[in-house]
């Protein structure tokens, strides 16, 4: 057999062997055996001495081609086997994605805190400071400074938890107004503050009453604040909390520490004013009380009421949350059943 034929034969066998291989190891062995230094091609080329000189380049080219072809066949087969192996591995690793997860739970902020913080952040954006004040307060700040003198009906013992004759559990976050006003330096700009926190009343706990609940008081005192500013501010708040299409309306009311005083209604977010159970078929829901600071309240804090004016408002986070989420029993906020709490995960 000529060298030429021998090489062609080697190529044929080598390519066939590569194609037949079933394992990567076989292909590796084949590469070492056929293409290595001790392999048959190298050996065959040693017979070049017997080839006439003019034929040698041709044989050399053939030998290189044979090596390349075998190499290619081995690589193709390796590729094929690798792909099969990966496919098999993927197949084996396939899982049931509907099986339950390994839980990585984050806790739920209490819905009242979520409600309060949503409102706080709204006012912070408008330049309001947040000042939580004291839960145990002096009669002086809780009543006297709010234009509620000693014999005023709002001071009746049955409404207030007193600790001593002069100390009490604050009944309203408005108690912070006097402290905020007297400590503010008006040369540094207007007073803009909200006071969120817990307040206490002598109420029997039932579905709509709680002896402890929350309030947020808001107060702006400056040279040029007006009833129109109060309306604009509360309009923006109600749209933030209850939705962008809400309208508000003012109704005259009475609070000792504001004059004029108003109750604020928001157009019903449930029926858009058509009338439903939530708005008692009026299209409006009462959400807060507000007004212009009573001149006496300003003067008692040493603020000249002929130069400065104030807007003040107070709202109940429990009421806001009850309206917004359809909570019907105020006691739910304080029983802390985790099934109740966790349904508010991520609402704010």
């Amino acid at each position, binding site marked *: 057999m000529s060298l030429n034929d021998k090489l062609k034969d080697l190529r044929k066998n080598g390519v066939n062997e590569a194609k037949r291989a079933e394992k990567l190891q076989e292909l590796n062995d084949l590469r070492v055996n056929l293409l290595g230094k001790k392999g048959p091609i190298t050996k065959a080329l040693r017979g070049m001495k017997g080839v006439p000189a003019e034929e040698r380049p041709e044989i050399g080219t053939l030998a290189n081609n044979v090596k390349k072809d075998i190499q290619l066949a081995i690589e193709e087969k390796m590729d094929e086997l690798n792909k099969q192996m990966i496919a098999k591995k993927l197949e084996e690793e396939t899982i049931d994605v509907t099986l339950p997860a390994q839980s990585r739970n984050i806790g*739920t902020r209490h819905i009242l*805190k979520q409600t309060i913080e949503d409102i706080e952040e709204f006012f912070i954006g408008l330049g309001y400071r947040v000042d939580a004040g004291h839960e145990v307060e002096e009669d002086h700040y809780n009543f006297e400074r709010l234009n509620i003198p000693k014999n005023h009906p709002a001071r009746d013992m049955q409404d207030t938890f*007193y600790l001593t004759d002069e100390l009490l*559990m604050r009944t309203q976050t408005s108690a912070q107004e006097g402290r905020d006003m007297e400590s503010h330096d008006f040369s540094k700009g207007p007073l803009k503050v909200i006071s969120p926190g817990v307040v206490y009343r002598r109420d029997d706990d039932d579905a709509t009453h709680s002896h402890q609940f929350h309030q947020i008081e808001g107060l702006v005192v400056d040279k040029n604040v007006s009833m129109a500013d109060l309306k604009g501010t*509360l309009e923006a708040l109600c749209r933030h909390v209850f939705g962008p299409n809400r309208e508000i309306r003012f109704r*005259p009311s009475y609070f000792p520490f504001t004059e*004029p005083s108003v109750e604020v209604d928001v157009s019903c977010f449930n029926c858009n004013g058509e009338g439903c159970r939530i708005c008692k078929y009026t299209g409006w829901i009462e959400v807060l009380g507000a007004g212009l600071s009573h001149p006496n309240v300003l003067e008692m804090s040493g603020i000249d009421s002929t130069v400065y004016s104030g807007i003040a408002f107070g709202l109940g986070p429990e009421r806001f949350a009850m309206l917004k989420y359809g909570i019907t029993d105020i006691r739910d906020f304080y029983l*802390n059943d985790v099934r109740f709490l966790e349904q508010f995960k991520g609402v704010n």
Partner: protein
Amino acid sequence: MKISLSWLKEYIPVTHTVEEIANKVSLTGIESSPVKLGEGLDKLVVGHITSIKPHPDSDHLNICTVDVGEDEDIQIVCGAPNVADGQYVIVARHGAHLPEGNRIKRGKIRGVESNGMICGLDEIGVPEKYVPEAYHNGIYVFPEAEKTGANALELLGLTDEMVDLDITPNRADTLGMNGAAWEIGATYDEKPEIKKATIDESKVVKSSDVTAEVNDEKLVPDFLLRELKGVTVGESPLWMQRRLWNQNIQPVNNIIDSANYVMIEYGQPIQAYDLDKLQENKVVVRNAKSGEKFTLEDDTEKVLSHNDLIVASGSQILGIAGVAGSINARVTKDTKNVLLESAVFDGASVRKSAQRHDLRGDASNRFEKGVDNGNVSESLVRASQLVDELAKVESISEEIVGSKTEAKPTVIEGSISHINHLMGLSLSSDEIMNIFDRLGFEADLNGDKVTVTIPTRRFDMSIEADLIEEVIRIYGYENLKGTLPAGMETKGGYSAKREFSNKLRNVLLGQGLDEVINFALLSKEEVNDFNIKDTNLTKLLHPMTEDHEYLRTSLIPGLINNVAYNQARNNDDIAIFEQSRIFDRSQGEDRPNEVEYISGAISGNVTNDSWNTTSKEVDFYDVKGIVEELLSFTNAKAHFEYIATNQISNLHPGQSAFITADGQRVGYIGKLHPSYQSDHNVNDTFVFELNVDELFDLNKRRVQSQPAPKYPSVSRDLAILVEKDIESGQIVNDIFANGGKYLIDANIFDLYQGSHVKPGHKSLGYHLVFQNPNDTLTDETVEKAFDVIKDSLVQKFNVEIR
């Protein structure tokens, strides 16, 4: 107060529906709702009983023939004891609808045909307590002949439409028809026509039997009486009775009814006495003597306090001033001579007496909120006029004065520009003056200055701000455009402390704890349960219940209640926290400090059984891990340690620790004591409590950035055998004390105590990591440090290096 539109029409034109009026009045003045009486009722007519005979098969039923305005009379069987021939009565015809869905149908009663029902007032919508006494337990009989077949409801005022004013305490001026007419009139730009009360001057006599005396004119600025002699007491006419029962007032007789009617007209309570029953010829308003007793008209006895203001004649008590009359001088059907009283009593005094004796009523409500002292005298004239009209008086005395204060209108000065400025409007002075005129206020304009004279009926008004309210509400809040305050920019935000506690809350939320909010007022037992600092308790003066009597000293009792509440409902796996205030009162102080705490409770499994996990119950180290992460977020420039303690009585003595920062206690952690757990019905529960205020004060670490290490670290494992009571913390502290500057970590990776080690000993394994930030560490350097560590442990703790 409910304002009947048919009555209001006597003052102003009424051209709107009751719903429209209620809505408009709500938006401009006083929260109101529409009331429509008699809705859904029908076929109730006037009947005239033309004959009556007993039912053959009954001892209490009667067969009546009734003329109902039709060609043929109808037959009705009636069981009322007061039914009689000739009466004009309310007849419910066949098919009539009565309140609460009751329906009348013809039928047979014990075999006798009955074509309807003769009704009592309570059967057609008047609450029983406002039905005149004579018609309780019986049918109603019209006082005079009425047209048969006429609509009975209409005659009885029971189709009235009313605007129910739910007044705020400052608007007592609308607790009478006159004031309400002014208010509703201003809303619709209509001036009410208010008739002046007059009496027949020919009946007025100069002399009187009694004199009046007031002990304290501050409490009783006005006290006026009139004697009316020779009265004929009887039933009031229907027009008056129906207005009274629609005001929730029971008609009694023409004297008492007239007094009550004037209260509804003028808002001024009037009291009537039987002149002949007075003990002495003098009527005195004075404070009661403590323990003095008197009997109300309904026979109940009251024991008075020296703070009660009373009207008396000698030792005879006529009533608590402005609150209630006594049985002593009650006007009855036999009364011949009457004494009428019109007065102003101090609101606070009336309020306290009414509360003290649980006697709040129409009169006390008005005195509490204030009455118009410009009307005291005229109201008395009006009452005399009505009594004269209805009870044919022979003589009327002049006003008998106990005290009298001149009624002065309030004058308020304001500025048009300031009023506009505070409203955020720019109304012309004409517009503003027009509003004052609508309200019946006289106003003078002088440039920008306006001087407004307020009639005495609007005793709620005293300052410019009150003028602003009147202007803006009549102008209409709906016409006000919202703006935002336009002053200097301010920087809003939380306090640094609040930011800090928010951060801590976020850590616990991130650790999977749900946030709770609990009550701050606890029972005595609860406040003592975790009063770790042994602070003075703060107690309410007048608690409502024993459950909420003291201010909390710890957040743990609330959390335990939550765990118990949840576990009772099969929510067994609980991880909760609260961030709130506790109350820490120093000896000798009244006012407690309000201290922010953050506390948690974890109970049940931290991992549950599932297809790929096995459950694991929470243990001390799970909770310690949460606390450590929390503390790592405090940015504290302090070294935290856990000091084992058996001093917290409601915690497990072997599984609890104080948490210290540089030796100062900032909180504690531990497992609940088994007996505390069983007392409170909770499963194994671990708690922690930290003082946020104290942690905030430690929040001083300044981070100086270090580049991430470039050189490899070197580690060594250390295995030792040590006596069982030595704490790992002691070992680690010693390792760090001796490990040199390159030691950066010492982690325990093994703890064994059992049969394979010496009795009373335990084997511990630590993984130490050394690193030089500036160079590669040599084995030699590490080995040297490692030797120092080992030598120290052997020396100090007698450990055996393994």
